[in-house]
Structure formats: C-alpha cells, structure tokens
C-alpha cells in the first residue's frame, strides 16, 4: 500500500494496526470522499459525456460523436477568445511577477515598518475579484469615475476619454486592476522563498566583495527559483481562467474583444444553452491547462536538478 507521506517536521505517528481500525479510518474520510465524488468526479465525467452530445437545456440530448469538437475547430470566436486569454495571461503574468518580486524584495526583512508595508500591499488581495472589479468599473467610468477625469484635470488628455470604449485602454485598465489586486499574493509566496535563504550566504558573498547586483543574480535568484515557479504556475493558471473582471468591468466588450475562454464557455452554456458544445470547449480548455501545468512543472524540475 502506498503510504501518504507527511512532509511536516514532526515524525509521522505510527498508524494503528487493529482490524477494526482498517475501516474506522475510512469512516472519517468518507464525507470528503462523498463530496469529491458527487461534486467533482461525476461532473468531470459528465463534461466528457456531454461533449459528445447535442445537449439543449430542454429536450433530449442526442449523441453526435465528435461533431462538437469538429465545430470547435472551425469556430473563430473560440480561437479568438483563447488568443485573447493568452494575450491577457502574458500581460498579467509579466506584470504581476515583476511587481510581486520587487515588492517581495522590499518587504523581506523583519521590522515594524516593513510589516506595515506588507499589510498594505496585501490588503487588495482579500477584497475578492467581484468587489475589486466593481470598484474598478466605477473608477474607469467616464463620467463619474476617477481615471479619465483625473487625466483631463492633469492636462494629460484634452477631453475625457472613455477608457472602457476602446480595446487597448480597456485591456490595460483591467490588467492594472489585476496587478493591484493580486501582486500582494505572489509577493508573499516569493517572500517566503527569500526568507528561507540562509543569511550567511549573503554575508559570505558580501565579505568576498560581491555587490548588491551580484548577490541578487548569483544567490537570491537561483535560491528563490522554487517558490517563484510556484507563483508562476498559479499566476498562469489563474489568468487563463479569468472571467469575473472581464464580465463585470467590460461585459466582454468593446465588441466582444475581451471575451476570455471561460467567458466563451459561459456564453455557450448559459446564454445560448448549447450545453454539449460548452462541455466540449471545457474539455479543450482543461487539456490546455493541464498541459501548461505539466510543462511548467517539468521545467521547474529539470532546473531544480541541475543545481
């Protein structure tokens, strides 16, 4: 039997041996298993099952084999949604990782002032995507918002620009919102890696005459790789699944240019009620995400091995 291996600092306690204990353990775990089976495994299987059907909301589903997948292949709007999602993921990830890394370097030391900075940078994280998006929708509003009137007052623009009416400013407004909201999250993950670097490493390098940049390049960067990779994977996966901000701030607009992959699935399944087609899109998105995670994990592991 495979022993689930606790990675905690304490030694794993020896599990009890008695025959009765064999089943007692299962009883404790049963509620969790039941939930995972009913609300996860069954729906997961159903997604695949539905994807090979024409499945309207009312009426009987009809087996159509791989027709949904064939249709998806030629569905320009799906590829456009996927392309936009990738573009957004790139922008958000590059922005988030650089800001989060910079913040982590700023707050890694202990002290009352840094504790305050840490809390301040982290606070937006706990607000939730829906409230942050609603807040941003207001701030980006042309008449009663903040950004365009402020830009006008500062003389940066002649007239009030409707940020949300054109693709480029709308896209950057949402991306900046996400950086504002999530930087603190990745900052904490990267910071925990920075703090795990033994102080003597830096000290020894300093004594050997290494400057700030050299120490950063040759000590900090290699040693923080693992938590950084974790942050990267979480960031890419999270961005690829973006929905709330584009639905709440932009409603997918202007002219459907900011419909993400999840948004497209939402539209197919719950606006047009083509549930089978929505399921096929879900399967494809799921496979893309799994592939992305595997690739990233591979890269991390290889790099981890050659040190």
């Amino acid at each position, binding site marked *: 039997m495979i022993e689930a291996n606790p990675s905690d600092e304490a030694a794993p306690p020896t599990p009890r041996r008695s025959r009765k204990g064999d089943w007692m353990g299962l009883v404790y775990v049963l509620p969790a298993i039941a939930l*995972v089976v009913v609300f996860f495994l069954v729906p997961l299987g*159903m997604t695949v099952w539905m994807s090979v059907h024409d499945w309207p909301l009312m009426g009987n589903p009809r087996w159509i084999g791989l027709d949904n997948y064939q249709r998806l292949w030629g569905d320009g709007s799906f590829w456009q949604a996927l392309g936009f999602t990738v573009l957004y993921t790139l922008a958000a990830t590059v922005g988030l990782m650089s800001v989060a890394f910079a913040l982590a370097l700023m707050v890694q030391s202990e002290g009352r002032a840094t504790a305050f900075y840490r809390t301040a940078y982290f606070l937006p994280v*706990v607000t939730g995507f829906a409230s942050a998006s609603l807040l941003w929708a207001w701030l980006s509003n042309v008449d009663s918002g903040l950004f365009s009137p402020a830009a006008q007052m500062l003389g940066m623009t002649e007239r009030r620009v409707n940020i949300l009416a054109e693709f480029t400013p709308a896209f950057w407004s949402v991306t900046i919102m996400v950086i504002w909201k999530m930087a603190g999250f990745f900052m904490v993950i990267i910071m925990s890696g920075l703090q795990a670097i033994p102080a003597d490493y830096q000290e020894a390098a300093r004594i050997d005459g290494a400057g700030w940049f050299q120490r950063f390049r040759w000590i900090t960067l290699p040693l923080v790789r693992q938590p950084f990779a974790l942050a990267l994977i979480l960031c890419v996966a999270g961005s690829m699944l973006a929905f709330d901000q584009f639905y709440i701030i932009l409603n997918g607009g202007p002219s459907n240019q900011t419909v993400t992959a999840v948004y497209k699935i939402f539209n197919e399944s719950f606006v047009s009620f083509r549930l089978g087609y929505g399921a096929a899109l879900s399967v494809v998105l799921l496979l893309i995400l799994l592939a992305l995670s595997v690739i990233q994990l591979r890269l991390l592991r290889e790099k981890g091995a050659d040190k």
Partner: protein
Amino acid sequence: MTGTLTAPTPRGGRIRYHRVLFHVTATLVALLFLAPIAWVVLASFRQATDSLKPPLPPWPTDGFTADSYVRLQEFGQSILHYTGNSAFVAIGTAVLTIIVSVLAGYGFSRYRFPLKGLVFVLILSTIMIPFQSILTPLFLLLAKMGLQNKLIGLVLIYTTLQLPFSVFMMRNAFDAVPKEIEEAARIDGMKGIAMLTKVMIPLVKPGIVTVGLFAFLNAWNEFLAALVLLTDQDKFTLPVLMTAVRYGRFGSVDWGAVQAGVMVMMIPCLILFLILQRSYIRGLTAGAVK
C-alpha cells in the same frame, strides 16, 4: 520612519540616506495600493448628486451621508437580505469545510485503511482541475438533485472546492501532534470520537482557523458559480446582486449604490483579514515552503 530594520553593516551616512529613500518609496507604494480602497470608502458617503460627479476629491464636500447605503435597499429585496444570503453561504461553507476536513485530516493522519494513499492523492489532485470546466454538468446535477437555486447547493460545491487545500492542511496539523498525547489520553479512557473532539481538536485549532478563514473568504467572494447556479433573484449573493446593479438591471446605473455595495462586500473581508492575518499568511505559505 527611521530604522526599525536591523542594519546589516553600519556604513555611516550612506546607509542612512539609502534607508530614508527606501522608506519614502515603500510608503508611496503603500499609498498607491491603499488608494482605491480609501477612495471607495470615502466616496460611498457622498450625496446622491455628488456621486454623479468624478470623485475629486473623494470625500463628501457637503456633509457625510449614508444615502448610498439607504438607496441599496431599493434593489430587489433589501441589501440585508442579500447580505444574509452571502453570510449563509460563507458561514455554511466554512463550517462544513471545517467538519469534513477535520474528520478527513484525522483519518489520514491516524489510521491505516485500504487505498489510503490513492484516496489522499485523489482528493488533492482535484486542485489541478479548474472547477470552471465542470460548471455545466454541476448546473444539471444540482437541478436533478433539487438543489438548483438553493443556497445549500452552493455551500456543497464551495466546500468541495476547498477540500484539497483544507484536507492537506488538517492532515499536516494532526501529523504535528505527538502521538504520546493520544497514548496518555487513551490510558485515561478516551477513545473514538471523544478522543478527536476533546483531545485532538484543541491541539489543531490554528489549522482549523486557517481552513475556516479561507473557506469563508472564498465562498463570500465567489462569483461565477453563484452567477450560473442562482437564477432566482431572491437567492442572489452580494457579488451577483451588485453586478446587476452595476449594469443597471434595476434602472439607471447608480454608482453611489455600487460604491456602497462594494463596501458591504469588502469590509467584512478586510476586518477578518486584519484580525486573523497570521492564520491567513500561514495558509498561504503552507504550500509555498514545501
């Protein structure tokens, strides 16, 4: 603003100058991060006529008023009703997550049973699969179970989504309790569920707080599943209601009401976080260090 940091090597004035520069930068960045929150807090107390104008300055120019909050009552049922929905879902999810993950964590930590390793990996691996991809069947499944438009359906789904993280946390928490403590209690005649509730639970309380906090916040803030699974306006949670307000589904868009709604959604999270900051960060770094 002066050095609460422990100075590495004293190099006189240069270090001091650097430190001042650091604190000035860090404070400015902090203000940047806090500004949007401060802006909505202040703007939500402006008059109805003011809320049509840009928030420059953000604070009410002719007297603080709670008008925006009062106007929130006009959308659908009262805002209290929807806050109640959200609270039910969030508290329900937190309680159920705690119960299920404490039991599972204890079982995984202290018992041996067939397929244990496989089951543990199975529960944890659900984190790899985004729930967005199973939303369509969940919608049908809930309808079939008669749970559509019921808040309890949402609670069950949210709890399931919390399980990989929570079971992992609780298993580790129980593993960290030395088995001598149980041995001693067993000699005193403790066994079964009493051992868990009387002896073990007090020892894993920090883990329970972390698990409950994450479950509460995630359920309180979740939007997509609530949007899809709740079609009956009476059952809306706050994010779904406020999105309807933002798109003017109740008439023209009232940004003052949106600001007040954002406050109602945001403030409980901020307060909970500030009180339980340690538990939150512990949960966040639990995965990162490993």
